[in-house]
C-alpha cells in the first residue's frame, strides 16, 4: 500500500470510529466522497493489471465480456430514473451491500491469484489495496447512515457455497467480473455521494 493511501485511509477511517454521535452528515459525506474519487482513479489500473496476468483472451487488447456476471455480486448498472428516485436509505444500503460483497469477492480473487500467479506481487498487492479501500468506504458509509439516523443493514455473507468447485477458467472469469464491478460500483458511489453532498451541504 503506498504511503498516501495509508494516510488517506487512516484519516477517513478514524472519525466514524471515534465519534459515536456526529451532529452533521456533511463531514462524513465529504470524506466518503473524497475517498471514492481517489478510488476511482485506480480502478481501471487494477482491471488492466488483472487481465494482463490471465492470458488470452483476457490479456487480448480490448477484451470485454459484459455478459459475464456473478449472481453473488449485485450489478452496478441501474435505470437512471429508478436510481435518481432512490431515497437516502435505499441508496446507501444498496451501495453498502455492493461494497460488502466486493470486499469478500476481492479477497476470494486475491486467494485465487496467489494460487495461480504466486510470482506476481504487483497484482496481489493491488487486489489487497482495492479490498482495503472498499472496506474504508464501507466505514464511511456507515458513518453517513449513523449521521442521518438510518438503520444499518445487517452484514451478510454474500459468498456462500459457490466458490470452491470452480475451474481455473471460471476463477479467471470471476476475478474479471469482480475487478470490473469494483470499478463500476466505485463510479456509482461517486455519483451517489455527489448527490448526497449536494443534498447535505456543509
Amino acid at each position: 500500500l503506498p504511503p498516501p493511501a495509508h494516510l488517506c485511509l487512516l484519516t477517513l477511517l478514524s472519525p466514524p470510529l471515534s465519534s459515536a454521535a456526529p451532529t452533521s452528515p456533511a463531514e462524513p459525506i465529504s470524506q466518503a466522497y473524497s475517498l471514492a474519487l481517489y478510488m476511482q482513479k485506480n480502478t481501471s489500473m487494477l482491471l488492466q493489471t488483472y487481465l494482463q496476468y490471465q492470458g488470452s483472451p483476457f490479456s487480448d487488447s480490448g477484451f470485454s465480456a459484459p455478459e459475464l456476471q456473478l449472481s453473488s455480486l449485485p450489478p452496478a448498472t441501474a435505470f437512471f430514473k429508478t436510481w435518481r428516485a432512490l431515497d437516502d436509505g435505499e441508496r446507501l444500503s444498496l451501495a453498502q451491500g455492493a461494497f460488502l460483497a466486493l470486499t469478500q469477492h476481492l479477497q476470494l480473487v486475491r486467494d485465487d491469484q496467489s494460487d495461480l500467479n504466486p510470482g506476481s506481487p504487483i497484482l496481489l498487492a493491488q487486489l489487497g489495496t482495492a479490498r482495503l479501500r472498499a472496506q474504508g468506504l464501507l466505514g464511511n458509509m456507515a458513518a453517513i447512515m449513523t449521521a442521518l439516523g438510518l438503520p444499518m443493514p445487517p452484514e451478510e455473507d454474500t459468498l456462500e457455497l459457490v466458490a470452491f468447485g470452480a475451474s481455473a477458467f471460471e476463477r479467471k472469469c470471476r476475478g474479471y467480473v469482480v475487478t470490473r464491478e469494483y470499478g463500476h460500483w466505485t463510479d456509482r458511489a461517486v455519483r451517489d455521494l455527489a448527490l448526497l453532498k449536494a443534498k447535505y451541504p456543509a
Partner: protein
Amino acid sequence: MALFVVFQTTFFLTLLSLRTYQSEVLAERLPLTPVSLKVSTNSIRQSLHLQWTVHNLPYHQELKMVFQIQISRIETSNVIWVGNYSTTVKWNQVLHWSWESELPLECATHFVRIKSVIDDASFPEPNFWSNWSSWEEVSVQDSLGQSILFVFPKDKLVEEGSNVTICYVSRNIQNNVSCYLEGKQIHGEQLDPHVTAFNLNSVPFIRNRGTNIYCEASQGNVSKGIEGIVLFVSKVLEEPKDFSCETQDFKTLHCTWDPGTDTALGWSKQPSQSYTLFESFSGEKKLCTHKNWCNWQITQDSQEMYNFTLIAENYLRKRSVNILFNLTHRVYLMNPFSVNFENVNATNAIMTWKVHSMRNNFTYLCQIELHGEGKMMQYDVSVNVNGEYFLSELEPATEYMARVRCADASHFWKWTEWSGQNFTTLEAAPSEAPDVWRSVNSEPGNHTVTLFWKPLSKLHANGKILFYNVVVENLDKPSRSELRSIPAPANSTKLILDKCSYQICVTANNSVGASPASIIVISADPENKEVEEERIAGTEGGFSLSWKPQPGDVIGYVVDWCDHPQDVLQWKNVGPNTTSTVISTDAFRPGVRYDFRIYGLSTKRIACLLEKKTGYSQELAPSDNPHVLVDMLTSHSFTLSWKDYSTESQPGFIQGYHVYLKSKARQCHPRFQKAVLSDGSECCKYTIDNPEEKALIVDNLKPESFYEFFVTPFTSAGEGPNATFTKVTTPDEHSSMLIRILLPMVFCVLLIMIVCYLKSQWIKETCYPDIPDPYKSSILSLIKFKENPHLTIMNVSDCIPDAIEVVSKPEGTKIQLLGTRKSLTETELTKPNYLYLLPTEKNHSGPGPCICFENFTYNQAASDAGSCGHVPVPPKAPPSMLGLMTSPENVLKALEKNYMNSLGEVPAGETSLNYVSQLASPMSGDKDSLPTNPVEPPHCSEYKMQMAVPLRLALPPPTENSSLSSITLLDPGEHYR
C-alpha cells in the same frame, strides 16, 4: 417397397428369436454372465468406472475369467472401444474396471456392455462367451446446468507432447461458436448439432500457469457468452542424471544427482517432482527434502554393499535410477590440512601436510603440484596420516605455490579438493657475470670511461641485486686497486682514468654474495684509429651488419649503438667466430639515423674499433626544404644557393636536390627536364646528384621575365615537403647596364664631394683666397688709437709703382738673411697679439682692395701690422678642423714647424731675384725701432710692393703666373697657421 419392408422385419424378428434361443442354451451351460453392471464417471480423470458381479460362481472357488467390454459413444451401434479384462474371480466378488475416455465424458453419451468367458484350467472343456449384459448408458450432459456454452475437460493435466481432445456443448444451435487456443482459432469435428470436439495433437508446454482454451458463442456480431478451460501441460519428467553416493566419514552417505527440469505447475495443479531414495538390501526408504541431494545415515557397520534406487515422481510419471556399490569404494576423503614448509633454503624445501584419519591402516595416495616460474611439476606420494615430501631443484629467491590432494589408495574413487600454500626459496649468489660495456672519451691527459651493464635476468640474479662492485686496477703501475660500490637500480657509472692501462672488474651482488666478475680492459692508447663510416640500409626488422674478421685472436665482438630518442648506449655481444649479426629491436624508429660501431675484443679484453656503420631502419623523405637565396640576379641568369642546409640531420641520406623552375616559356632550359607536379601543373626540373652541391646557376633566362623556382632535397624515400614556389623577375637589359655605369659614377661623385667638403678650407685657400680689406686692417685701429683724423688707406691707383731693382745676391747675405729671418720669427712668436689672428673672423667682407705679399727682405714688423693678418676662416669652424691645435701651445709649435719647413724648402740660392721695396729700404737697418714706428710711414708707405720685373717694363700688372709662383713658393696657408 412395402414388400421389402415386411421382408426385412420378418428377417430381423427371425434373427432375434434365433439369438435369444442360442443365448439361453449357452446360459444354461455356462451361467456365469456378468450382472449388476454399474457405470459411474470421474470428470477429472475423464474415466468410466465399471463394477459388476458374476452370478452362479461355485462357492469358495476361484476362477480365471476373461471379460470383454464394449463401449459405444452417442449411440449403441457406434462402438468405439472393445477390450478384454482377465482376472480371477471369487464367489460373490464385485469386480472393478476403469476406462479413460479421450473425449470428455460431458460431451457425449456413452454406452457400456460386458460379457465373460471362463479361462481356467479346471474347465478343460471348450468354453463359450456368456451373453452380453444390457447396454448401460452414461450421460453427464443433463447435469451440466443452465449455461448456454460448456467447454471440457476442465483443468486437465497432461504431459507435453501428448494428444488431447477437447469439446464444447452449445445449448443453442443457432449460436455460432468459435474456439481459440492461446488466441488462435482451432477447428474441430462436430459430433452432433450441440457438440464439437477438437483433437489437439502434441500439445506444447507454454507456461506453468496453464494454457487457455476458450470458446465464444455469438449470434451475428453479438457475443452471447464466453467459456473456456485451462489446460495444464506439464514438462515430461526426466530421469535423474549423475546419481552417485559417497562417504567422507563412514557415517553418512551423501547422494547427489542432477534433477533436470522442474515439472511444477501453477494453481497447485502439480507440485515439483518428489525424490525418494530406496535401499534394497536394508529395505529402507527415505523421502528426500532437496531436489538434488540426499543424506543416508549408515546404521549398520557390517553392511558394505548398497543398492540404491532413486525414484523421481510427479502426478503423471515415475522415473528411477539404480546404483550398486561397495561402501569402501566410495570414500571421498576430507581435504588435507596443515600444509607447511620446513627447511626452506635456496634450492629445496620439505612440504608437510596431514590427512583426516578414516580407519586404521588406511593408506592414502596424495598428489602434489608445484607451481613456480610459469612451470608446473607434479609428484605422487603414498602416505598414512602425515604426509611429507622433499621438494628439490628449486630456483633460488622464487615464490612457489605447492598444493596437495589425496584419495583412497586402495580403491581410488575421487580426489579431494586441493589444499595449498605459498613459499619462497632463499636467495643465492648471482650465477652469471653482468653483461658490461663501456664508452671511452679521450681527453688530453685522461680517459673518461662510462661503464654500462645490463641487469641480470631473474634466473641469474638469484635474488634482489643490491649493488654492483666496480674494481679498477692499474695494469701499468703497481698500485692499489680502487673499489666502487654502486647501488642497484643504476646501470652505469663514470670513471676518469689517466693515460695508463686499466682492468675493470664488475660484479653484481645480492644479499648472499657476488656474481662472477665481468672484465674489461681500457688500453693506454686512446681510440684514435680512423675508421671510415659505411652506409648501410636497414629494414623494418632491424639492421644486418657484417664486418671483416679482426686479425689475431679475438674472444668476441661487440656492436654498440645509441637508442633514439633516449640516447642510451646499447650493445650486443657476438661470438668470436661470427662476423655478421642482425640488430633488431622495437626501438628503431623510421627516419632516425643509427650509428653502429663494431669492436673486436682481444684476448686481453681490450676492445678495438673495427668498423663504423650508419644507416636508417627506414629512410624517410626530408622533412623540410632548404632556405634558398637568390644571388646575382641579372637579366639572363640568377644563382640559387642553400649553403646553410645541413645534409646530416635529415630523416634519410640526402642524395641530391630537385630544382623546379616554372616560367611562361613552354620549352625547358637545356639542362632541365619537364616534370608534372602533384597539383597537375607542369614545370621544369633539374636534378643535382651531389648532396654537397648547394648552388645552381640558372641561366639562359629572358630579361624582364617572371620565374618561379622551388628547391627540394630528396632521399631514397622521396622529396621534401611541397612548398610554395619563390618568385623571381629578371630585370631588363639596359637598366642593368645603366646600373653598371651609374653606380660607380654616383660613387665617384660622392667621394669627390666628401673630399671637397673635408678639404674645403684648403680649396678655398688654394683657389680663391680672401683678399685682405685694408679698411678692416688692425693698422686702422692703431691709427684710430693715435687719433689721427686724416687717416686714409691708400688706393692702388694712388700708388706710383717704382722700379724694381735686381741686385745680385752674395752668399754671405743669404746666410745673414736667414739668420735675420729666424730672429724675426722668434720675435713674431713672442708677440702675444699675433695670436688673435687665429680665432675665427666673422663677417669677413671679402677681399680688400690691397694685396699683401710678404717679402723676406722686408721688415716683418711692418708686415705684421698689415692686413695680411686677416685669415679667411670658415664661419664657425668645427673643432675637428683645428685638430691638435686646440691649445695655443700646439698652435704655436705647429706654426713654428711649418714655418721652418717652408723656410727650409726655399732654396734661397736658386732665387735669382731679390725684391727690394722702395719703401722698405730706409728701414732695413733700423730693426729696433720698428715696433715704435709702424704708424709713421709716409703716404702709401704701407704697401710693400715687390716686383721682379726687368727695368725696362714700367709697372706691369701682376700676372697670374707670378702670383701663382709666389703662392707655391710661400705656401701661405701653412704660413698663416
